């Protein structure tokens, strides 16, 4: 199983849209795929029209084992499952803090389902917290959507500093531009600056598109409801690029 996290300190940068579409693309190649919605807002659960069971909550989640097994739900797409989040995930930090090896808890519980899936996508909540550190320890790769604005870039640099200070391997960290409006000269300038700055930056840029926004209306991945659209094609490019990085490029599917 390859674990891919969609993470950003900032909210509203297109994490969930990327997680949902990439996971849909990953599963279409007959790879067994799971999305784990870690965000108490439950946006990816919403996109797949999935609600968690009434008695599921953050403390059950971090117990792992059968609680995970019983709460994974099949999406409307073959080979694609989702573990929905609950509002109680807002307390995930506190719950984790009480555990032994609190920074490695997610790695442990995902290790238990390692043989069930080929890909695990983590749709992470914004912020930098104990949950984030669990994600950094559990994920093989961390993908950071980056809106090309000064503030976004500053936050990204903070994340890089955090990785250096905490001795996490920043080589697993990849940024990609998200919600890009190429008409804006500021966006263009910032993208050029970052791309020439020696960071891991993916080539594919996700534009700001209304059909991506519309996912909230259709409640489906754009790669499913508009598979021929530009947006779907761009996510497919992004997925190809990611597959190349994770070493599964080309042969599969």
């Amino acid at each position, binding site marked *: 199983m390859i674990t891919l996290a969609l993470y950003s300190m900032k909210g509203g940068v297109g994490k969930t849209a990327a997680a949902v579409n990439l996971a849909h693309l990953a599963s279409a190649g*007959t790879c067994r795929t799971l999305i784990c919605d870690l965000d108490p807002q439950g946006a990816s659960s919403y996109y797949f029209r999935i609600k968690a069971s009434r008695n599921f909550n953050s403390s059950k989640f971090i117990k792992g084992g059968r609680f995970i097994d019983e709460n*994974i*739900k*099949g999406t409307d797409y*073959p080979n694609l499952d989702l573990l929905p989040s609950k509002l109680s995930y807002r307390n995930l930090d506190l719950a984790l803090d009480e555990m032994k090896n609190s920074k490695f808890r997610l790695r442990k519980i995902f290790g238990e389902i390692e043989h069930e899936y080929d890909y695990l996508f983590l749709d992470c909540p914004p912020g930098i917290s104990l949950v984030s550190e669990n994600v950094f320890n559990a994920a093989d790769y961390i993908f950071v959507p980056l809106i090309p604005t000064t503030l976004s870039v500053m936050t990204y640099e903070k994340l890089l500093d955090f990785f250096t200070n905490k001795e996490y391997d920043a080589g697993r960290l990849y940024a990609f531009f998200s919600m890009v409006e190429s008409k804006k000269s500021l966006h263009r300038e910032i993208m050029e600056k970052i791309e020439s700055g020696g960071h891991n930056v993916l080539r594919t840029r996700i534009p700001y598109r209304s059909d991506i926004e519309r996912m909230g209306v259709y409640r489906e991945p754009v790669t499913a409801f508009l598979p021929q659209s530009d947006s779907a094609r761009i996510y497919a490019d992004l997925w190809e690029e990611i597959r190349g990085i994770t070493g599964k490029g080309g042969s*599969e599917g």
Partner: protein
Amino acid sequence: MDNSLYFIFEDEGTRDEVLGQLKNGLPLTGDRRAERKQLYLDTYDHRLYKKGLLLTNEDGRLILRDTGDGSSLSLDLPAYGGMPRFWRDLPEGPFRDNLRSVIDVRALLPVVGVESLVNHLYLENEDGKTVAHINFEDVEVDGDNADKAVIHLLEAVPVRGYAGEFENLTRYISALGPAPAGGNILSIALGASGKKAGDYTSKVSVVLTPDMPSGEAIKIILRSLLETMRKNEDGIVKDIDTEFLHDFRVAVRRTRSALTLIRGIFPENVKEEFKTEFAGIGKKSNELRDLDIYLLRREEYTEMLPPALRAGLDPLFDIIVREREEAHREFALELASDSYRRSIEAWEKFLYEPEAPGDALPGAAEPVIGLAKLRIRKRYKKALKLGKAIDGSSSDRDLHTLRIECKKLRYYLEFFESLFPADEIKEVIRHLKKRRQGEHRRRGRAHIGVIREAEGNKVRIPRQVRGVRR
């Protein structure tokens, strides 16, 4: 676990009626129609089916479905090159690894072909989320003969995490009339063509009752073994895979073991005559089996050598391949020979034809439970005695004798398995099997290399190889 449930309709009329009622009563969407052509593949002993897996070839795409959790893997076959027979014929990857772990050395064979017209519907909840799938299917099954059977069925497919909804759905369908059919599409299709999925086993599967006369019980055991032999002959001759010969030989060996039970039940000359016959048949297949094993272990043997030297084994294996072809030809001829046919006919006559007065001895009428207990106890005591004598100075020969004795004990336990509590006797059999495998491993370590192991096993070494040795 999540499992499709099938409902079979008597005819199209009932099907249409239920379809109409479902559409009226449930929030169904979709109604997509598709044609599907599938060739089901499995090993001769249906290893995939027994593990809850279904392998199909659909338009040049192999699909391996796990009926347990509904997951699937697929693999596009190259346009040329035909159907893969063994796992090693597939490209490296998860598909091959999964298949290999189940089918092992067995070949894939076509089981049944079906052509279906599928009408696919979804059951949605209030969020518009699909919580179950419903497929109405007209399935045309390829029979052995020209007439094709058509089955009208409904497949209810669960979605993970929506067990309650699925239960409600199947209850709803049942209330409309049709009862759920056991099994899956493969067993249903096979049933329609008059066959049964997973009905072959190389195990002794006889059901005896304690007070059954011993003579009758022994004949039941022997008949089942003969059936196993006969079922495997064709696969040996056609050289489908090495397991046909293996199962055949095990059945022959078990027959010889079962023949030792007939003292006091049938005349001694029956035992002597057929023991010799079966020993002869077994012996004639020894060389082919030995050569099969070398080829099956080719990878293992090759990996014992440092990489630089590995290619040096190729000429040896070329010789073994040629010798094996010859040995196969000889044994296939043996199976087609008059002498083999006469042996089998005489054996069938003994097993199936009513006994003439005086053919059976007084012991034949005694209840089989007494015989079973007595004989198992004797074997057990003998094995125990041999086992106690084993120490650090014991020779390979002593170990071999003990191993054979344990195998005989296991055979007896297997013959009479149905007379004893299942969990207890299965546990004992399992232990004896494990013991035997442990022994094999120890022997493997003691004799490293093809030639030395061959010597240890008193196996005929190819002439050319004997030359190489010096």
